[in-house]
């Protein structure tokens, strides 16, 4: 298997690092011996055809695969000097620091306000003033504040798809995470809303490390600085997005980028 991982970062630039990660999904070897470093405060995109393992890997980064009993994960995922993949790790802390946004906007069946403060309250923040501040701050960051400030206590489900997705991002950043994991965050949205989200991510990368899984190769090209191409559980090529999109080293990457994948 020809593979090429050209990204080697200084320790201070690494947001999260994976070493010899293997993920098994039942009898399927979903991620094979993966080692990669992800740059801090930047956007890294995972691309590849369906079933290549990119989403599985993403979900491993905040242990969401624990929900699927038949998955088994071995190897190390280093974040803030600890191995996330350790059995004894406090999941709540990890997930608080590594937020996630899904393909389909999934606001809770609650008001806009409640959506954002739900986790905060769970973590014991009770003072209304602090909660109000975080709500406003988070909504401003996702450019939603002006659209919803007059109906904070109305149901979040009444928002449009694009607004819902921005709310989900706001909800994820309300707990002040360091990393945001996005699993195809725009594939359920119309082009205009997708554009807004992309632009938003571009702004957010100043404060957060963003890892995005996308089926939409063009999207990866537009917003990411680094791109990793996965195929059948292998990391085929990982490099700066410019390189991946103009001069990939591995033929398979080339074929995929050119849309010649059979």
């Amino acid at each position: 298997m020809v593979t090429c991982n050209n990204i080697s970062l200084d320790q201070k630039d690494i947001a999260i690092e994976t070493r010899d990660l293997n993920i098994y999904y039942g009898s399927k070897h979903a991620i094979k011996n993966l080692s990669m470093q992800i740059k801090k405060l930047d956007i890294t995109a995972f691309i590849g055809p369906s079933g290549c393992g990119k989403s599985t890997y993403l979900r491993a980064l905040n242990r969401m695969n624990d929900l699927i009993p038949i998955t088994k994960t071995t190897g190390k995922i280093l974040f803030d000097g600890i191995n996330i993949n350790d059995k004894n790790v406090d999941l709540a802390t990890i997930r608080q620091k590594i937020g996630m946004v899904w393909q389909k906007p999934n606001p809770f069946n609650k008001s806009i306000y409640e959506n954002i403060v739900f986790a905060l309250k769970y973590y014991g923040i009770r003072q209304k003033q602090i909660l109000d501040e975080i709500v406003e701050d988070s909504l401003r960051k996702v450019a939603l504040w002006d659209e919803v400030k007059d109906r904070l206590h109305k149901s979040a489900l009444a928002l449009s798809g694009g607004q819902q997705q921005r709310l989900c991002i706001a909800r994820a950043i309300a707990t002040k995470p360091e990393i945001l994991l996005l699993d195809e965050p725009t594939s359920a949205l119309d082009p205009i809303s997708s554009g807004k989200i992309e632009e938003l991510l571009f702004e957010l990368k100043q404060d957060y490390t963003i890892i995005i899984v996308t089926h939409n190769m063009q999207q990866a090209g537009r917003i990411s600085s680094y791109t990793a191409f996965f195929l059948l559980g292998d990391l085929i090529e990982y490099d700066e997005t410019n390189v991946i999109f103009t001069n990939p080293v591995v033929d398979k990457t080339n074929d995929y980028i050119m849309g010649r994948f059979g």
Partner: protein
Amino acid sequence: MNVKVIDKIATVIFYTIAIIITLILFGLLCFILVKGLSGISWDFLTKPPENLRAGGGVGPQIFNSFFLLLLTMLFTIPLGIGGGIYLAEYSKPNTITYAARLVIEVLSSLPSIVVGLFGLLIFVQKLGMGFSLFSGALVLMIFNLPLMIRITEQSLRAVPVEQKEASLAMGISHWKTITSIMLPIALPGIITGTILTAGRAFGEAAALMFTAGMSSPPLDFTNWNPLAPNSPINPFRPASTLAVHIWKINSEGLIPDAAQIAASASAVLVICVLFFNILSRWIGKLIYKKFTAA
């Protein structure tokens, strides 16, 4: 024959079938209501039944039906929801879970008379509860538990997985996720299902004949001591429900106006069941609206 002609004929046949079924239901409803409503009066609804003479009422039976329903639901709802949560969220895909599912399926398709006979054997005879509301409620619980578990499980499973993941991904515990995020979403389904279950319990007779008994002691509605034998709220007294009463007067036929009383009692029963049905739709819609309203 031309395929198009066959197609036309088939269509006509399907329409006929649909009309027949609708007519059957309306026939049934009209028959019961027309025949029954004439016999319904305040007296009928409150007076105790007569054994040999005409003019008896079904007051105690109506009370018994509702009281039994209350008792049953008291057992069924917590156990059913608990079981549903366990199966939907905590069970691992292993042999025990598989067996539990199979058993629930079997249990839900047991003939009610078999469940009733079991109740007779265990609660009435072995555990010495005698013919009592309590035995009846336990039997109805066995009868309804599988349905309740299944409804809860299905409602929880119908909660979009994204909702659950969103909550867990923020580090919120599984139990908190279930109670704060998933149950509210599953609630309309659970409530609708519960009311339908209640309707089923309300009309059940075969399982109760041998457990709650086929007769009621004279009740004194002023006696609220739950231990007195003639107190209406004593759960350990025998009690015939509306459905059992209908069966009894029809098969024994000792009273001269049996047919009229049966018709009226049936009407009351059907009205109650219809009421449950409409209530469940209404509540379902209401909750749905409340959750999705802007």
